[in-house]
């Protein structure tokens, strides 16, 4: 297989998993142009790092690793480009999904909470929201499964507290 064919196959696999890129770009950038820049950078690094892909991990695990690494480096270079928060999504996409007022409030709180998280906690939240197993999260982030479980249960407690405060 020549390099062009290999690249075409990889592009196909990336396209099949493009929602990973969407999510990460949306979580780390607020501005549309920045999101596109980041998406391009992620794709470039995916192509560049393809030789390092091994069957030991799933394709999506490898893709998450590369995409999160690129996004975190990009975010650190452009700190002023604040992460996307739910209010901004809501105003951009009013007509897409309608929720009850209470749920909307909760989603706004959740969006703000995720927007304020530090780089690694944000990555952890993205993976948790994707319903990734603790094992896969630990493989992507490079921390122990116990550490993943502890952090997630801490995040859940904070969120429960925030939502309960809203109700009261």
């Amino acid at each position, binding site marked *: 297989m020549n390099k062009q064919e290999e690249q075409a196959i990889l*592009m196909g696999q*990336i396209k099949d998993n*493009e*929602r990973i890129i*969407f999510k990460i770009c*949306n*979580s780390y950038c607020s501005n*549309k142009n920045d999101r*596109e*820049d980041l998406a*391009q*950078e992620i*794709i*470039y690094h995916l*192509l*560049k*790092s393809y030789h*390092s*892909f091994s069957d030991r991990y799933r394709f999506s695990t490898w893709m998450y*690793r*590369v995409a*999160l*690494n*690129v996004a*975190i*480096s990009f975010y*650190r270079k452009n700190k002023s480009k604040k992460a996307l928060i*739910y209010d901004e*999504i809501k105003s951009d*996409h009013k007509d*897409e*999904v309608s*929720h009850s007022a209470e*749920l909307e409030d*909760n*989603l706004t709180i*959740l*969006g703000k909470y995720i927007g304020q998280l*530090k*780089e*690694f906690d944000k*990555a952890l939240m993205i993976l948790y*929201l*994707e319903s990734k197993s603790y094992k896969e999260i630990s*493989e*992507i*982030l*490079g*921390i*122990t499964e*116990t*550490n993943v479980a*502890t*952090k997630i249960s801490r995040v*859940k407690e904070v*969120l*429960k507290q925030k*939502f*309960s405060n809203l*109700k009261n």
Partner: protein
Amino acid sequence: MDDIQLNNILESYNQKMEQVQGLNMQCFETLQKNKTQAKLKSLINFKLFAVGLGVLWLSFLSYLFYFSLEKASIFFIISCGAVILFSLLAIVVYLHHINLISKINNSESVIAAQERITKLKLSTLNITRILFLQTPFYCTFWWTTNMIVDSPFSFWFISFPVALFFTFASLWLYRNISIKNVNKKWFRILFNSPEWNSLERANSFLEEIQVFKKGI
């Protein structure tokens, strides 16, 4: 609030985020001409430009050194030789640094890769430490034996103490310019520039990485 309610909220959020793509994925097709590549290219060009300048400086010094071997004073020869050695060492370290940056593997786990990138960034301090070691030789290259014999007072009370001061200062800086002192006041005064501020940020990021790894 129970776990089921919380999970419902998280799921709704996830669904909402899935619907918001907001990205023009034509970048898949236009990737070959994208600005990322241009950006990376310009970064490499800048580093190569810096190496080029270093090599030019080294060539100039080597020329001076070679053609002054027979005529110049021993002080000039030793000083010039020392500056050549330190500059050469700095260029070698810089090239090694560029090589390591080009080999960064983004498919490592997030924590491992970010730790490596941050440590590499902080390692630029080594080049600065080495370059500081050459400062005393800029105070000695113009010394001559005649100067010591003809004007002993100005030599022993001005030139020599100045060189001695720079020797101690450069050795002290060599020992103390390190990651652990990035937050010290003298460090901030000495290196108050955006590039050095980014080192400070890199250092605190490294601390964040350690905390995240330990699960504190």
